């Protein structure tokens, strides 16, 4: 059923009895052309684009739990394309363009909100680095503006301009950046993919890979073996675990990132802000909660929860930036397990085994990539070659030294 105000009105009159399942809760068949492991945003988007762009519908998405409860369901929903490196910037801009038409494409309101993303700087050196980045964006036709402290103040009077340890000097603003309703992105892609014939199989954990020589021929799951010509792994945070089933080691560590939401309040924050002198970034959800986060907890973990020092660190960053939120209360905190890659950039590539494809290493920035990652993974699966904007996301770049290190932190994932 198409969603619209009219269909809503119709349903309202009939007691909402006519709504159908948003997506089919499929049982797995014994074989598919393409299997996508991982029912997060990326996996579902890839399935959608396989069906939509490449006409491939003999596709299943296997999700160990219910879809969208991984990182897609627990991230701070920031979307932006303000990257520096020439390998990253065009890719994220492609994603941004896809976000801009997503609702109409999916017939699902994912509440993509281009409210602006403002990165604050507090020193000349930081400003210079931002200017370099902003100019790289402009060279690719991406919007970027440099604000001075006065302009920042006009936009966000709630920030601390009087008493700060590291005074705000200005910011780099991407107005087209913003947020999207994370769960709706998952549901929207699932509904659209399912509508095109893709099987979405929930509670189906991949526990092994079926192999013939150096070729992957399917997967072993908690719901039986499933054969496939191609298996794509898109399991954010758990890539190493699935890769280990094929005997592979990846340039990835799994780390927790915590996120936080405050009690709901009336609007105080019109855009997304990142603090440049500490670990804190924040936006206000449409429901009214301040959604914020900060640094990684910093150690390998699969526990999907964090510890107190990070909570304190993030909140002190928040207080340093916006002392008016002091009496607001933190409502809930949670953690997500992310693939932290060794240079901070992702991998969309064939694995060294035939039939196996990787979409991994998204660190804490993969939500914004959801549409483009799905599109590029679908491209790789369907065309057997990298999408032109994802060519640098190779697995062998660590061996060849063609690293994509935006922050210059080197092979220490907890510093990216």
């Amino acid at each position: 059923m198409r969603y619209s105000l009219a269909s809503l009105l119709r349903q309202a009159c009939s007691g909402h009895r006519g709504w159908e399942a948003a997506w089919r809760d499929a049982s797995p068949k014994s074989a598919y052309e393409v299997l996508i492991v991982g029912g997060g945003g990326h996996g579902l988007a890839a399935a959608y684009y396989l069906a939509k762009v490449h006409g491939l519908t003999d596709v299943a998405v296997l999700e160990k739990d219910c879809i969208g409860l991984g990182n897609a369901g627990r991230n701070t929903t920031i979307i932006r394309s303000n990257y520096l490196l020439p390998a990253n910037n065009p890719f994220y801009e492609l994603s941004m363009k896809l976000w801009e038409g997503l609702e109409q494409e999916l017939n699902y309101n994912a509440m993509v909100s281009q409210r602006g993303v403002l990165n604050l700087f507090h020193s000349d050196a930081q400003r210079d680095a931002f200017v370099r980045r902003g100019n790289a964006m402009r060279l690719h036709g991406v919007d970027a503006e440099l604000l001075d402290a006065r302009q920042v103040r006009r936009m966000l009077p709630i920030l601390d301009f009087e008493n700060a340890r590291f005074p705000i000097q200005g910011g780099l603003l991407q107005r087209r950046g913003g947020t999207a309703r994370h769960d709706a992105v998952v549901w929207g892609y699932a509904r659209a993919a399912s509508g095109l014939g893709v099987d979405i199989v929930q509670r189906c954990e991949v526990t092994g890979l079926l192999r013939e020589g150096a070729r992957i021929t399917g997967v072993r799951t908690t719901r039986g073996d499933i054969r496939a010509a191609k298996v794509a792994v898109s399991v954010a945070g758990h890539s190493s675990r699935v890769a280990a089933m094929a005997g592979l080691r990846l340039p990835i560590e799994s780390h927790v990132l915590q996120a936080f939401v405050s009690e709901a309040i009336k609007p105080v924050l019109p855009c997304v802000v990142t603090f440049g002198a500490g670990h804190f970034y924040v936006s206000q959800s449409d429901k009214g909660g301040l959604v914020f986060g900060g640094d990684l907890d910093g150690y390998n973990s699969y526990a999907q929860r964090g510890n107190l020092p990070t909570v304190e660190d993030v909140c002190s960053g928040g207080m340093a930036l916006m002392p008016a939120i002091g009496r607001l209360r933190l409502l809930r905190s949670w953690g997500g397990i992310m693939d932290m890659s060794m240079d901070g950039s992702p991998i969309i590539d064939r694995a060294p085994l035939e039939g196996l494809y990787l979409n991994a290493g998204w660190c804490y920035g993969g939500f914004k990539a959801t549409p483009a990652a799905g599109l590029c993974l679908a491209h790789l699966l369907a065309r057997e070659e990298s999408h032109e904007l994802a060519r640098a996301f190779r697995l062998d770049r660590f061996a060849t030294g063609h690293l994509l290190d935006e922050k210059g932190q080197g092979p220490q994932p907890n510093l990216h």
Partner: protein
Amino acid sequence: MRIECPFCGERDHSEFAYFGDAACARPAPGAADAQARFVEAVYLRENPAGAHRELWYHEFGCRSWLQVTRDTRTHEILEVRLARESTAP
């Protein structure tokens, strides 16, 4: 998380800096395939869900490097030793 530093005693992990997998020893620099081995040691990770041997630096304490064995699923700490005293893997 609390790490029992062999020198300082049990301390909150916020006193320590984390350095990752302790199993990645520095390969012999002279070997013919040294570059491939360095790539493995510097970039490739087992990243296990379970016991993980890893390095922590007691930066706010005695400045010892520790080799800690910790379960990455539960954060439970199974063993701690001074890195300098642990038999190199």
